[in-house]
């Protein structure tokens, strides 16, 4: 089912949603920088950037989350766990790549015997309204990883910006439940054609030549390759790529407080930090950037696919855009493939 929402009704539509749901959407922090936050006013929604710096994963997996807190009263310690959410949520304006990434993270947090209740509760109670990418960037390569700028999978409702209006597609039951909304109208034939045109243009634009296909098997043979000796050299070991990556999900648990009261907090962590694998004895199984960069690439393109059958990269390009030393993962992927440049000099750095 498809509907049309005029942009002139957008604010009122959002206002209506906010009566029943907590609305999470991109909010402007400063020129060119935005973040997913809970909206208090419809005017705060900021869709001018193709994507936010920090991806939508933080709506389900916050950067810093208090898991429980405890307090000693009269000899008894009372513990309150904080996974429960009162109100249902809507995630508005997430892009297809980061929505696909949420399903990648889900496989780790929500399958088998260990279910992360904090993640599960948020995921269960959130309706996802994805927003298509009309103008992908030259750094986007979602199609190389099995995605697309108009991938509807994972969205409950899918929005396409037609200029003066949004075309809205109901994808799941949760999405279709909005059909009674008074602001949603019947789309015209022209609207549907416009959407089709935008979609095929966007799809063409995305780089589908990055050789992700077959990378798992290629990396199987590369654990001790000299490739790793050089590829890491310019990496300074900050956490930008991992924090901004829609699929990265490493975390650190810390206890704060003391005997009387305190809390347990889960914070994002990064395998690129030397502290990540540092053991109490002082031994570090990943002592240098070589091992850490290798681990990052192996995790995304070899270890995770072995367990879950798909690569843990959605081709969003944030790591390329925001890396302070211009590390380009596409080049690293290229080097693992037969298409790699022959000349040694091209390989002497990455």
């Amino acid at each position: 089912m498809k509907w049309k929402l005029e942009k002139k009704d957008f604010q009122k539509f959002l206002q209506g949603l906010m009566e029943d749901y907590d609305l999470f959407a991109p909010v402007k922090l400063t020129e060119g920088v935005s973040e997913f936050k809970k909206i208090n006013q419809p005017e705060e929604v900021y869709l001018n950037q193709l994507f936010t710096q920090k991806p939508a994963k933080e709506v389900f997996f916050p950067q810093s989350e208090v898991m429980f807190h405890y307090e000693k009263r009269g000899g008894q310690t009372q513990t309150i766990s904080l996974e429960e959410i009162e109100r249902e949520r809507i995630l508005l304006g997430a892009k297809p790549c980061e929505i696909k990434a949420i399903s990648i993270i889900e496989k780790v947090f929500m399958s088998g015997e260990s279910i992360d209740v904090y993640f599960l509760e948020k995921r269960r109670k959130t309706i996802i309204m994805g927003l298509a990418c009309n103008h992908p960037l030259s750094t986007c390569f979602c199609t190389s990883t099995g995605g697309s700028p108009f991938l509807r999978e994972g969205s409950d409702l899918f929005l396409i910006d037609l200029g003066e209006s949004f075309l809205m597609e109901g994808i799941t039951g949760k999405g279709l439940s909005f059909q009674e909304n008074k602001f949603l109208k019947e789309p015209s034939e022209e609207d549907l054609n416009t959407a089709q045109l935008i979609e095929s243009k966007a799809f063409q634009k995305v780089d589908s030549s990055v050789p992700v296909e077959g990378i798992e098997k290629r990396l199987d043979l590369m654990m001790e390759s000299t490739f790793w000796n050089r590829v890491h050299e310019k990496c300074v070991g900050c956490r930008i790529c991992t924090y901004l990556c829609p699929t990265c999900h490493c975390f650190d648990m810390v206890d704060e407080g003391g005997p009387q009261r305190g809390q347990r907090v889960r914070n994002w962590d990064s395998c690129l930090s030397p502290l990540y694998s540092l053991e109490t004895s002082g031994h570090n199984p990943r002592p240098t950037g070589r091992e850490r960069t290798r681990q990052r690439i192996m995790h995304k393109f070899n270890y995770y696919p072995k367990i879950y059958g798909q690569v843990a990269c959605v081709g969003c390009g944030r790591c390329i855009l925001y890396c302070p030393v211009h590390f380009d993962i596409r080049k690293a992927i290229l080097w693992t493939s037969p298409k790699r440049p022959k000349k040694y000099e091209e390989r002497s750095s990455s």
Partner: protein
Amino acid sequence: MIQEKIREIAKDLLRTKKVDLVIGFGEWTLPLRTTPLFIRTPEGADHLVWNSFCENNLAVYLHKFNQFKVGVVVKGCDARSIVALTLEKRFKRDQLFLIGVPCQRMVDRRKVKRAVQGEILHAFEEGDQIFLEGEEFKTTLRRDQFFYSSCQTCIHRTPLHTDVLMGDPVEESPLTEILPEVKAFEEKSPEGRWDYFKKEVSRCIRCYACREVCPMCYCEECFVDSSNPKWIERGQLPSDLMFYHIVRAYHQTGRCSGCGACERACPMEIRLTYLTQKLNQEVKDLFNFETGIDLEASPPLSTFRMDDHQDFIK
């Protein structure tokens, strides 16, 4: 051409084995950017470039390679960082070969991006113009309207204490009494200043890019990672974000070369240079010290004079 000279000297250094590797800049995939290159063969030197997008401070890599003889391409600010590191005995001066390039100032790629509509796909320089091309536009900008703020106020753009200089020295900028960023900040009230600072760092995501790209941040255990004593928590508490940035800036007192690498690295575009610029100013006023100029000077906080300023002490 500076680029050719850099390539020649790198080739020569590697051929004669005067150095084990040369660290410089190279083209990579994005427009308006270069990337650090680690060249080990004379043929590889052909990849070295020099343009207005060589924004990284390559001195940060010298810590990793302090067992080797290293040639490194340095701008004015980078050379100052290296002098500061030599004073702190991080390495010996004679294991470095400094390829100094008189700097024409670096272009702020974010400012450039904001000046156009649409994604920039190609960029090249000619003289003092930058030519930009996107999918549906072509435009030209004057590079002198898009410098980084740290470059605008840089006094010694010709690197000092280098082994070679790729070109004629550029004119030293006149000394401004108070740097514009610092002046603008000081004009606010105390509440206004704290609010501005708090708001800026509220965007911080603790990625530590500012720390990792800084050549002067080389502590084996940074204070933020210390758990005993634990100074700040690892989460997103606003007071911890403020604490981190205050201390990181303060730890640069008398050490910061003003290169601006911290601000350029920040993915959330947090302003940072107004913090260290103030400290550089204080160190100049109080101790007549400028980071990275004098190879014989002592870092100001590791020494003292009997007549140091003490009017503030009761």
